[in-house]
């Protein structure tokens, strides 16, 4: 967790954003992240993000569920407490399948939701810095990270030349923190003040 300096550019057009992302990457600036109001097909590829490992995790959770169900039912009905159900053999795989299926689905679903929250760093009371509140409404926000090698005025000018409608420089916390937002960035209070 550390405070870093960021150059934040807002775009209103998806096509402009796509070409801007490509040009920023080829020029060597470091993209911190791109925030968009809705999912945009192909943006992850354009940004060069690696493929998510969520589905691999889901597969492992599913296999765990299958194993849990089969070994659990197997242990109960074969060794711990064998019961006679309508003269069926103790080892009755077809009867076990529905529960095995359900546990597979349950494990993979719950596990994937938790993993998703972990990967996105989402949890109750976990807060992250918002670069531009309009990124949840009508603006595509690209955030570049400043390093020692480049200066922010060059980066701002570059973003402007790529079609950003508003560009500003912010110093912000990179990680997450527990608790509340600072008063300045409280979205609704700010709005009230400006209205009055």
């Amino acid at each position, binding site marked *: 967790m550390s405070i870093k300096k960021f150059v934040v550019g807002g775009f209103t057009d998806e096509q402009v954003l796509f070409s801007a992302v490509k040009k920023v990457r080829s020029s060597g600036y470091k993209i911190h992240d791109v925030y968009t109001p809705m999912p945009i*097909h*192909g943006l992850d590829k354009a940004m060069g993000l690696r493929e998510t490992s969520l*589905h691999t995790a889901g*597969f492992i959770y599913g296999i765990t569920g299958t194993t849990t169900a089969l070994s659990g039912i197997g242990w109960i009905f074969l060794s711990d407490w064998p019961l006679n159900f*309508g003269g*069926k053999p103790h080892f009755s795989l*077809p*009867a076990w*399948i*529905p529960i095995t299926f359900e546990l597979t689905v349950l494990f993979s679903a719950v596990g994937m939701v938790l993993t998703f929250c972990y990967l996105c760093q989402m949890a109750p009371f976990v807060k992250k810095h918002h670069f531009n509140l309009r990124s949840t409404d009508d603006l595509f926000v690209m955030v570049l990270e400043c390093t020692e090698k480049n200066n922010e005025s060059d980066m701002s000018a570059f973003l402007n030349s790529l079609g950003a409608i508003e560009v500003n420089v912010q110093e912000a916390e990179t990680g997450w923190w527990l608790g509340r937002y600072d008063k300045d960035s409280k979205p609704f209070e700010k709005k009230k003040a400006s209205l009055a």
Partner: protein
Amino acid sequence: MSIKENFETPSRYKTWSLALMGVGALSLIVGYFLYSNQDGGTRFWSALLQNSVYFLLVVNAAMFFFAATTLAWGGWQISFRRVTEAIAACVIPIGAICFVILLALVFGHKSNIYEWLNKDLVQHDEALKGKSGFLSPSFFIVWTILTIGLWILFGYRLRVISREIDDTPLTVQEGKKYIWKNTVWSAVYIFWFALTVASVTPWLWLMSLNAHWFSTMYSWYTFASSFVPGIALITLFVIYLKNLGYLEFTNKEHLHDLGKFQFAFSIFWTYLWFSQFMLIWYANISEETVYFKTRFEGAYAGLFYLNLVINFLAPLLIYMSRDSKRSYATLTFMSVALIFGHWIDFYQMVFGSTMKDHVPMNLFDFGVAAGFVGLIMWNTARVLGKYPMIPQNHPFLKESIIHHT
């Protein structure tokens, strides 16, 4: 412009399709002399029934595919829609063949295939007597004529609608009207499809091989078992045409979706298969378990498990990852495997009822199947070559070009 291009059948393809049809005809003749006089021709007629019904339902599934996607106002399939239409045109020749075979069974009084054709047996059997309104030659023939006839009619109508805009660019208003017309005719076809494949027709053609036994899930199960190879057939044709350089608007995104269809409906098939099996296994009532007696424990146990391995385990494990659904090699391999796997499924549906003692599978079955494969190849290529491969004035074509999964 390149999107006007028509399919030209490569000579090797034509040779192969004709050769396969030759093999089919040869098998038919050899099989006729070998088997048609043996035990009332059970072996011979079962093979014909299994193959003709299976391949008819498979090509009809291609028609269901484009009607269902049209009804859902889907746009992604437009770039290869003509391929599915061409496959669906095979309903005409295969439907005719299937119709002749079914008529021959009924008029030839093949009670060794359909036991309800035996009037003496029905007279002295309360259960069959109660079903005699449904399982009677007249209802069977009328329903078969309606089934195949209306499939052909609606399919023809849908293909004509598809072609009528080839030379006339549409305005937005005309486009809306055109889409609506497509939707209505697709809905009519789907309605008839629901009454045939999804309910009555498999009961008549296949389930009545065990006249006493019944399962309300049987038609859904048959539908799933024909839809998976139907999608696999579409995938094979799309990949083949891509490799020849046609269909330039169809790319890995479309193939990925076809792979998803195969994957999803393989799981759907397993779901229905298992639901039918488990309820009967659990209740353990002899009038129901009689169906699985030959298959689960008898001579067909090997096919029973092979069926599950090819049609459930293989797609589950192989199609699970994203990359395998986007790879031409995996898609081709799995499509062929699934077409074969569901052929096996239909094989045990038919032969498990008509020849309970042993599995008589030999070259004759594969020869007849090869004949149908050749017929599908030949007819699809013939229909594909007649019209432009891409409906370039279709209002949804752009949606298909920019399709992204």
